[in-house]
């Protein structure tokens, strides 16, 4: 009996994950999401983040995750930490070695979305939340097809 309940609970969890994954909040951040955690569980926010990533010229330095001028974002090395809050702060306030601050160039919600997308580059988000390939020249496997990078290193 209990196993049946467990199965039911699992199913319900999956369905609710579907709910959370597909929700679209257009303005501001959801009340249930003070630490920004939910952004990386929402496919829409991650996809919006991906559009912002292109629109805000992030590709110019970080390419499609491989880096160049700036560090790679698809690997497991995080100079300033790889938690969504840390990424959010890197984007919002900038970092001294060249990362510009975006707090007056993007809204808070957009920065969270961007951070959520950055999390998806090394597939630190669920597979069904990570974006699929772009309709563009493809640089490699899409985020949703990447293996999750090895455990996070706290710093260099």
């Amino acid at each position, binding site marked *: 009996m209990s196993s049946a309940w467990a199965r039911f609970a699992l199913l319900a969890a999956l369905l609710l994950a579907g709910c959370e994954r597909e929700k679209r909040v*257009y*303005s501001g951040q959801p009340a249930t999401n003070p630490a920004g955690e939910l952004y990386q569980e929402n496919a829409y926010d991650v996809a919006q983040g991906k*559009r912002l990533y292109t*629109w805000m010229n992030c590709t110019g330095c970080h390419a499609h995750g491989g880096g160049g001028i700036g560090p790679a974002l698809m690997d497991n090395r995080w100079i300033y930490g790889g938690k969504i809050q840390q990424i959010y702060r890197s984007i919002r306030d900038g970092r001294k070695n060249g990362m510009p601050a975006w707090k*007056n*160039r*993007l*809204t*808070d919600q957009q920065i969270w979305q961007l951070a959520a997308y950055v999390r998806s580059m090394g597939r630190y988000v669920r597979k069904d939340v990570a974006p699929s390939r772009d*309709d563009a020249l493809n640089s490699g496997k899409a985020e949703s097809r990447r293996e999750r990078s090895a455990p996070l290193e706290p710093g260099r």
Partner: protein
Amino acid sequence: MNWQSALDPHSANARHLADLFWFFTALCAAIWLLVVAALLRAIRHPGLAGEQDPPERQLRKSRIVGALTALTVLILVVFTAASFYTTRSFAWPDMNTLRIKVTGQQWWWQVEYRNHDASQVLTTANEIHIPVGRPVTLELHATDVIHSFWVPDLMGKQDLIPGRTNYLTLQADHAGVYRGQCAEFCGLEHARMAIWVFAQEPSAFEAWRRHALMPNTMPDGGAAAKGAYIFVHRQCASCHAINGSDAAGQTGPDLTHFGARATIAAGTLHNTAANLDRWLADPQAVKPGANMPKVDLSAPDRAALVAFLEGLK
């Protein structure tokens, strides 16, 4: 503004289309009435005994059905021919006319007047000015999903397809303002993706074009100057460009001479100071899902921004 209607044509092309439409409609309505009349007659016709028609009656019916079928074929041939000749009456895209590149994006229109002389290349958004009485070739592109350009008063629609270029020729008979909107489902704000065509006398058009090419002069004092500062130094410049200022973002519509535009957000709101304030206060309440975010600005800052933008005549 004219009705956005296929039945309110304001160009030779649209008139041809409307004429063809009325021709089809008249004939089809007649056919429909005949069929319904025949059905009613059949319903009221007293039945004959037995389960099958006698041979001679069957023969007669066969002849009638045969004749009707032949008539159907004839009408369809007429329809096909009429369609064919109507299509043929439209001008082919001509690269020597005024060429305007229209790029559909979620959910607005980028408009670029092509020119061999690069300095005459003009970029604007969500409205097209055309001179009356001469064909204008639209070069239709899309960068994200499929859109469809449709200004029914002037011409039928044509899709904007990523990876392809389509052409559409517009020619307005007389000056006027014609509304159109995206006709191919393109996502969340498909409903709020309108485009306005301003057909102007050639001299007025040329005056508009020359004016639109000039960079805006930046205000040198007052609320508008504060607004200009906010525009360049806050979120606005990340996406929008205003020639004459240091803002040169290309993600959102080019806002050079924004104050002279008719609408805000691709026809969502009429361009008034009050509407602009409402839009800036929370775009997502007006056009949910649009890519314009809600920027946290104080009411005075917003008012300054409105003063600045509305001043960009």
